[in-house]
């Protein structure tokens, strides 16, 4: 019964947090406790409904090919119907559960984390709005609805990165995130418009039947352009090279926000979009190649940066970019299953690690540099255990979650292209290395004398435990319970573990962890010596390849120069015209004011001159008319 209710009321899932946003935002903003209760209740109810939806999907045997659709007309323009509604298939159900689980955990965690912040009510309002937008995006049934919520999550991201608006760095980071993702969104909007023009609809279900026919008739060349334009949106939102620059800076926001938005949910919206519209992308080999190589490159590129970073959250941010690249790679090599599987496990373990980061940084009194920590495992045992689980999960050791999803991606890559497989393997090795480095440097070694860290409160501890459990079991559960039976495109993929690939990846990960242990705990080799030996490469990596500086330079060269030109045009030409008109009017009025010298009798003279002129004029015509009519009027 409940399953049916959840399925037919799936529209409630985004609506409840939206209501919570309105109630908190308009009413209870000042009251911290009430705001938190309302926010958590709403997202908790959404979580239960999402579980119901999953139950319905399982019991009703809803499959990817035959989703459940509820649709209503939102706007009717000319002969174009814009629909809004709910599309439930296994992919949607999986996303709903992932988003609501992480959002619920983050909401609970925030009660502890934001306890001393006067803006707690506002924080919960924004979190609820974000949850509403993200869930709305997930259940979208056409590109337009998705685009609306896509912009909604972008707005929430902006609001929450700039949550500490009194800090200049936070404001700048918020603007950077918004503008960078806008660049991507613009490309995506063009793609959506082209879809509407070409097919006359943006509905997923209708497009699914139209696209193969279109390709059969007109080939893939024009659709490739649309596909590439659509892909620009995910490049911006999911932090792919070259629009990844906003994601590391987004760590200016409160840490629960980084966990929820910039690790687990919003940034995977791009991956989800491609997954949702996979029936378009799968038909376009060129676009798939671009996605695969860009994803692979981003994964590798971000991993090389993460190795040398020092702030806790920054390492995690580059790691997120790298893992998003992994998901893109999986989509590019044609495995929707592997990509979505990794999306799910990554959401759990990356949210877990970010929440640990929040606990650590708060315990260290806002000290983010991992080299100023050390020995934290003695002070914060629960956080340490959770973090260790997260690290092992992302490094991909069995039986933790990352092993199964990463193995699926590696297997899919190996099937299609050996260079891509190599790239992914090297990235996996680096991932294991830098995550172990983070763990060993921050949590191992001696406790510093001035270390203020203590274990955190219960609100912040229990979500960690829940996510840690999910990080352990979600991979194995997904693998053995048949994730690939639900979420797939075309034909179901065989999911037997390829032990050559899995074995080599385990060996690589273990080797990377051993290496990190030798360098950062045993100190067999000095990390400073290695950095010095690497020289330029280390510098490049430490400064993130100077991408920000390059962008700043390009901006100075182009945008600033255009701005100066526009300013010149504005001050000299536009203002010149306006001022010129003013001066002209002024000069004319001086000229016309000359006869008005206040001499009444001159006015009278002008007046009678006019009268006489009029009379003379009419007499002249009267005589003419008389001449024509022969004397009679």
């Amino acid at each position, binding site marked *: 019964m409940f399953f049916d209710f959840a399925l037919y009321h799936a529209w409630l899932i985004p609506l409840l947090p939206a209501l919570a946003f309105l109630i908190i935002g308009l009413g209870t903003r000042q009251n911290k406790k009430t705001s938190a209760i309302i926010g958590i209740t709403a997202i908790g109810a959404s979580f239960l409904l999402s579980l119901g939806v999953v139950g319905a999907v399982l019991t009703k045997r809803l499959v990817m090919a035959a989703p459940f659709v509820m649709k209503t007309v939102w706007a009717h323009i000319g002969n174009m119907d814009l629909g809004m509604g709910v599309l439930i298939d296994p992919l949607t159900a999986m996303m709903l559960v992932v988003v609501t689980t992480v959002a619920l955990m983050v909401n609970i965690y925030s009660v502890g984390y934001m306890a001393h912040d006067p803006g707690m009510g506002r924080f919960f309002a924004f979190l609820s709005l974000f949850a509403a937008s993200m869930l709305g995006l997930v259940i979208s049934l056409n590109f337009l609805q998705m685009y609306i919520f896509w912009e909604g999550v972008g707005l929430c991201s902006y609001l929450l990165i700039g949550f500490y608006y009194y800090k200049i760095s936070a404001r700048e980071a918020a603007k950077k995130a918004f503008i960078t993702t806008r660049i991507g969104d613009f490309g995506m909007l063009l793609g959506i418009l082209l879809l509407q023009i070409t097919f006359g609809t943006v509905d997923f279900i209708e497009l699914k039947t139209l696209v193969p026919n279109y390709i059969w008739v007109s080939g893939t060349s024009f659709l490739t352009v649309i596909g590439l334009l659509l892909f620009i949106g995910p490049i911006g939102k999911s932090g792919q090279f070259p629009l990844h620059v906003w994601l590391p800076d987004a760590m200016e926001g409160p840490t629960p926000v980084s966990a929820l938005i910039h690790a687990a949910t919003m940034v995977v919206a791009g991956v989800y979009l491609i997954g949702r519209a996979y029936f378009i992308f799968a038909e376009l080999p060129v676009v798939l190649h671009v996605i695969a190589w860009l994803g692979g490159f981003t994964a590798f590129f971000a991993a090389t940066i993460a190795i040398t970073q020092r702030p806790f959250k920054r390492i995690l941010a580059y790691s997120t970019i790298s893992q998003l690249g992994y998901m893109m790679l999986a989509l590019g090599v044609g495995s929707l299953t592997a990509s979505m599987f990794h999306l799910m496990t990554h959401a759990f373990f990356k949210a877990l690690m970010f929440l640990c980061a929040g606990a650590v940084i708060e315990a260290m009194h806002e000290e983010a540099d991992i080299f100023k920590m050390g020995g934290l495992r003695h002070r914060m045992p629960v956080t340490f255990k959770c973090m260790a689980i997260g690290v092992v999960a992302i490094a991909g050791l069995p039986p933790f979650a990352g092993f199964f999803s990463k193995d699926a991606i590696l297997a899919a890559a190996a099937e299609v292209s050996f260079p891509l497989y190599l790239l992914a393997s090297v990235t996996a090795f680096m991932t294991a290395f830098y995550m172990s480095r983070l763990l060993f440097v921050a949590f191992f070694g001696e406790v510093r004398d001035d270390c203020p860290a203590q274990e955190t409160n219960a609100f912040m501890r229990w979500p960690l435990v829940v996510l840690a459990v999910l990080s352990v079991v979600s991979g194995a559960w997904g693998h053995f319970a048949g994730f690939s039976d639900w979420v797939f495109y075309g034909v179901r993929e065989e999911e037997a573990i390829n032990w050559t690939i899995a074995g080599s990846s385990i060996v690589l990960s273990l080797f990377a962890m051993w290496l990190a242990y030798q360098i950062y705990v045993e100190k067999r080799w000095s990390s400073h010596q290695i950095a010095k030996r690497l020289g330029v490469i280390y510098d490049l990596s430490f400064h993130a390849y100077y991408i920000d500086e390059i962008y700043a330079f390009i901006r100075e060269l182009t945008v600033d120069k255009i701005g100066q030109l526009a300013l010149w045009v504005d001050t000299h030409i536009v203002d010149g015209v306006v001022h010129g008109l003013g001066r002209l009017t002024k000069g004319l009025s001086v000229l016309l*004011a000359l006869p*008005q*010298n*206040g*001499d*009444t*009798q001159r006015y*009278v*003279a002008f007046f*009678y001159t006019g009268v006489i002129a009029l009379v003379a004029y009419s007499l002249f015509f009267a005589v003419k008319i008389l001449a024509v009519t022969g004397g009679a009027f």
Partner: protein
Amino acid sequence: MNLMDFVRLATHVGLHHFLLFSALLFAIGLFGLLTKKGLIPLLMCVELMLNAVNINLVAFNHYMPVSDYSGQLMAIFAVAVAASEVAVGVALAFRIYRDHGTVDVDELREMKG
């Protein structure tokens, strides 16, 4: 036009005489309006011009073929309006004299643009 015609026209008083007379009166009034400097003489000149019009009205009324008094009525109205206008005008002249100490229109240049 021979001499007899001219004599007849000159001695036999008709519409032309009235019209000529009123035109003359109007011209005198206008001349005064343009040349006199005091407010009171200017008012008097305006009266002259008004009365020139009244004479026209009455004359046309008299020489109209049908028997009708609309012209005369109009003239009486005009006289009444002129009387009130003079009252207002003279009152204004007094006020101006008390405020400015003069009624010379050359001195009163506050309306200068």
